[in-house]
């Protein structure tokens, strides 16, 4: 049973150095929190994947100083939404991922996957970093 209660106590923060080896544990933590909040296995997969894409981007594109940058993930419930926020310390890149020219590759599907799997996506680029906010409604 989904917890649609405004008083859901989930408001969990996880901070870690921007290292590729932490991607798997970070997305699995988000998946566990979503499971605890009562989502079905299928929706948990969607949340895990969308969050995984955002975390991968934060490490790959949002950490100008590499491992000395940190990533912060916050998960909480608000009204009818389960929300994951991924914050990094980078500037949003003003370039589209389009391969090296003659070879248009498949890059650039991360954001489209987030949109396809979540109900609301906010990408907010500020001077102190990018934050990606993903929400999934309880249905």
């Amino acid at each position, binding site marked *: 049973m989904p917890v649609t209660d405004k008083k859901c106590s989930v408001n969990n923060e996880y901070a870690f150095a921007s290292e590729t080896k932490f991607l798997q544990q970070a997305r699995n933590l988000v998946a566990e929190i979503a499971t605890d909040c009562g989502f079905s296995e299928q929706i948990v997969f969607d949340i895990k994947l969308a969050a995984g894409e955002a975390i991968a981007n934060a490490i790959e594109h949002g950490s100008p100083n590499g491992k000395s940058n940190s990533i912060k993930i916050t998960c909480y419930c608000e009204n009818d939404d389960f929300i994951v926020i991924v914050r990094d310390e980078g500037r949003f890149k*003003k*370039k*589209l991922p*389009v*391969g*090296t*020219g*003659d070879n*248009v590759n498949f890059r650039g599907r991360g954001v489209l996957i987030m949109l396809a799997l979540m109900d609301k996506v906010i990408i907010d680029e500020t001077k102190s970093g990018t934050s990606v906010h993903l929400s999934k409604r309880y249905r």
Partner: protein
Amino acid sequence: MKIEVTKEIVPVIEITGEVDYFRAPELESAIDDLILDGNRNLLFDFSKADYIDSGGIEVLIGTLRKISKVGRLNFVSSNDDVVRLLDLVGVSRYSTFSLFSSKDEAIEDFKEVLKKCQ
């Protein structure tokens, strides 16, 4: 958007106005006709065009694929915003794509290239 096709040393596709998502198919079919006629070198004159969106970009990239390594696309524009966008989306990184600020230069370039082919 208005399209006018004329024939110089290569076909010249002159576009006036704004190329967008819903007008792009019209541009695509004009280009497809030229490619069907055997043309692989094309000049896009964008001097009188001041807007292109992802739909127009899709046609440009589609054209670059269709003419592949055997053809060239010379693109004329001196509109800073259009040029910046072509760079953003990666069109300018295709080796068969070249940007010119005037039609004369784009034609001169084709003359040079076609001379070498003889």
